[in-house]
């Protein structure tokens, strides 16, 4: 058993931070995301013997993460339990050089979390993986075990839902204090 944990830890090393961040983005709060990630690690431990090609560990682990995410959000208990205002509380974040900027980021992150929660699980995964994590549509199709057109459809519908959600909430042109510095989009690992 120890050998399995050691193998998993070694394989997980290069993807740990990115996958944990993805888990948080898929969930309604940081704590829930950390819980989902831990759940995924446990599942990966149970199924590690089925991984034949270690070079495919990253996509295998992400597919496991998405599977755990889907299972979890089928339950209404998980859908409703964590209030959005606890998702990324202002005071819980480290203050950047400009404290106000981090506060504004927390507000923005909460809004994004709330809007993403309005999507169904598959759309949310597609939007998070494509828009934030930088995966290609083909990679997402592979992870979601779906066709490329299906992923494109999820992205288009997901974006449209986000846009409508922002319009309904009056956030489309909201002034939320200084916007955070642009975050370069790049490879997730």
């Amino acid at each position, binding site marked *: 058993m120890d050998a399995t944990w050691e193998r998993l830890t070694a394989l997980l090393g290069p993807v740990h931070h990115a996958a944990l961040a993805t888990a948080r983005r898929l969930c309604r709060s940081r704590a829930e995301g950390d819980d989902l990630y831990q759940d995924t690690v446990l599942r990966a431990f149970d199924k590690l013997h089925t991984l034949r090609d270690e070079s495919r560990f990253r996509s295998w682990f992400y597919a496991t993460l998405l599977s755990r995410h889907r299972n979890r959000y089928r339950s209404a208990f998980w859908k409703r339990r964590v209030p959005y205002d606890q998702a990324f509380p202002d005071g819980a974040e480290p203050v950047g050089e400009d404290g106000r900027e981090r506060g504004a980021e927390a507000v*923005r992150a909460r809004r994004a979390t709330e809007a993403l929660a309005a999507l169904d699980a598959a759309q949310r995964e597609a939007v998070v993986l494509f828009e934030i994590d930088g995966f290609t549509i083909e990679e997402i199709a592979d992870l979601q075990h779906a066709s490329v057109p299906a992923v494109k459809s999820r992205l288009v519908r997901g974006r449209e839902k986000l846009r409508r959600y922002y319009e309904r909430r009056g956030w489309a042109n909201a002034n939320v204090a200084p916007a955070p510095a642009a975050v370069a989009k790049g490879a997730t690992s």
Partner: protein
Amino acid sequence: MNVETGRSGRDREQPLVSEVDRDLRALRTLTETQQPEIQTVVRAARSRRGGETRGGFSMAMQLLQRRPVLATGLALIVVALGLFVIPVSYQRTVGYDVALKLEGANLSPQRVAEIATGLKSAIGAHGVSVVGDVENGKLAYALTAEAKGDVRQRAASFERLLDGLGYVATVTTTPRKETVAGNVYAYAASLIIQVPVDSGSAAQIEADIKQKLAAAGVTNAEVSVIDDGQRHDVKVKAERTGDVSGQPMPELVLTKGGAPLTGGSQVRIMKKRDASGAVTLVVSTSHDGKDATVEIPNANTMTDAALAAELQSKLQAAGLDVTVHVNGSEITVEKRTP
């Protein structure tokens, strides 16, 4: 996996609204901070797996320790269940005994019977009992009835009607209480008096507060409501004597549009006198969403100025920017003006 960037790797044909983009970037940034190291996660997962082989309470506690989200959810459920399940006994007003005393020279038995019928109808009682007696050489009638609900206004209206018709009528209403066994939630709800401030004039709100306080057992309240068009100043003064430990005062909640008013100021002052005569002053106040409760022991031995200074100091230390004035038995706590 050969990773290519998503949106940065191609032109966007359907860019998201820029506001959504900025929010997603903020989410990206914040989810990358404060991450536990891989060893921490693996250690927690391993011990979680180890704990799953155990059973019962020990396993549940280990599970909760390692899954804070679950612990929070369960704690909320436990508290909620506690509110609805924990049995308590408390008193509540279930109706009123109405007594109407009638005097006058023009009271024939037939007229009294008509008035009794009128009273029964006015307060919705099942029946009215009538007793005639001679007091100071004059015939007087006492009509008594039991009514459900709060019938004081209807009884008072009936009294005014009789006065208008030339009778000498006096109505008294006494709340009828019963001890009920309920749960904590029901008890707490019974102690909260909701008064809508958008339901009428200042005088009507004042009467409403008085009536609801009396229904909750506070019968000697002095209530003052001033509406200057911009704000409502509501002052309530009530005294209770004797052993009131374990008998919390009802809480007055002012509402507007059905929702509790927020952002205003509320002050509750309680003086507790023990057997030796020493007075402990308890001041609970909230200003702009901040709450604080301070106690001043032996307040009766202090001068007004010393008491005001002590209260102000403690409330300010609790984060409330207020000014305190003491004038004899009157204590006022006001938001400090710049």
